[in-house]
């Protein structure tokens, strides 16, 4: 190549830096960039780490909170300290916690909240490839307290009803079975919406009757709404999203994470 004159090089450098900075700036302002995607249930850059009064304020938030309002929550590009001052805190200072929607020991050093949609293929991938091993190696050994959060996306026709059934089954202490059944046969029931039939093949008739009765309970729907509101307060706009809490720090992980990566991350976190 011929030698480029210095002025031309400088001009190129200047333009390139401007373009790059503009791109970075655009990404570091999810308040604007995530507004539209949030409304369309599309993901946006998530360097988000929600902080204070998350569950309390979120529980009161309306379901159809404007995207801009959701996106205007404080965000940060690195883990931040979770502010205390939550009433009756559970593990990792989390209030508003239904133990039936969680697995493991409450005294586990790491708390993970997974915002999931039973009809989302990526949630199935996460469940199949990471969550099971996570349960065996970290939850069962008392290192992780794993909380299931329902985040049915509006674009999925049957995810809300699946969440309702899942929530109801969890009330009977059958969260694991319902997750297994719904994710395993996701491709089948998402075509027909036959969540009931899918679960009926797994549970006994007696349990199914209890589950069916519970799905009609307004409290179940309210609990789903609470999870949704909590997710919005975390700026969750994509499933699966996992929020890891450890020693007052919050690490949001959006999308699929392989077990190998998660395992390395958790081990590093525990050794901190």
């Amino acid at each position: 190549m011929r030698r480029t004159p210095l002025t031309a090089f400088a001009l190129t450098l200047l333009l390139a830096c401007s373009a790059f900075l503009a791109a970075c700036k655009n990404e570091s302002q999810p308040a604007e960039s995530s507004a539209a995607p949030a409304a369309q249930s599309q993901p946006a850059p998530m360097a988000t780490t929600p902080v204070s009064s998350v569950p309390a304020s979120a529980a009161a938030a309306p379901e159809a909170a404007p995207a801009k309002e959701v996106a205007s929550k404080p965000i940060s590009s690195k883990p931040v300290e979770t502010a205390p001052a939550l009433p009756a805190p559970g593990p990792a200072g989390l209030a508003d916690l239904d133990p039936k929607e969680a697995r493991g020991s409450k005294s586990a050093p790491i708390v993970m909240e997974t915002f999931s949609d039973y009809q989302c293929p990526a949630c199935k991938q996460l469940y199949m490839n990471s969550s099971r091993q996570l349960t065996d190696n970290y939850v069962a050994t008392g290192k992780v307290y794993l909380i299931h959060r329902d985040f049915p996306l509006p674009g999925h026709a049957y995810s809300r009803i699946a969440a309702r059934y899942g929530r109801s089954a969890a009330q009977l202490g059958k969260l694991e079975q319902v997750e297994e059944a719904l994710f395993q046969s996701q491709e089948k029931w998402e075509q027909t919406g036959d969540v009931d039939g899918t679960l009926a093949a797994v549970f006994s008739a007696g349990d199914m009757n209890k589950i069916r009765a519970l799905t009609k309970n307004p409290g179940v729907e309210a609990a789903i709404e609470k999870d949704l509101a909590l997710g919005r307060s975390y700026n969750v706009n994509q499933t699966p999203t996992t929020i890891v809490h450890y020693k007052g720090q919050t690490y949001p992980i959006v999308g699929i994470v392989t077990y190998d990566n998660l395992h390395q991350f958790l081990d590093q976190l525990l050794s901190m």
Partner: protein
Amino acid sequence: MMQSSPLNPSRFIIWAGRLIVGAIFVYAGYSKLFTPNRMWSPWFAFKLSVSSNLTNFGQQVAAFQLLSTAGVSFVAHTLPFAELFLGLCLIFGLALRISAPLITAIMLGFLAVVTRAYLLHMNINCGCFATPEPLNGFTVLRDAAIAALAVAMTILVFREARKPHPWATPANS
């Protein structure tokens, strides 16, 4: 002298191509590496962040149903870095006769893949950038426009390379 002026049409297209296509590639690579997860510290969180983003990008690549699992993994773990590196080369004018054809080849590959998916009515995300966007006619047209610019730029880069540089001292002076 007008022909060798930096403002002649050929040079203008090369400049525009370098800046536009280069910036698009840099942004595409950057977004795939650092979106949606972007934890900068500590180091292990950064590693998880990038690896998780690449895994998610791999899902989008797999959705095109063109590659084996190993192929998907290879593309997902190399393409974002290649886009970033080649985009920077293009912007800074480094090894233009290598970076420009490579970017053009990648761009034509994208166009072929996206057009195939569009014609097959595949209801998938285009995977162009990290933010999922449904693959539609606009995506195909956009890729076609970028590919056309990349092709024109590459042809002109080679053509201009044979001419004396406009600001070079004439050989006989």
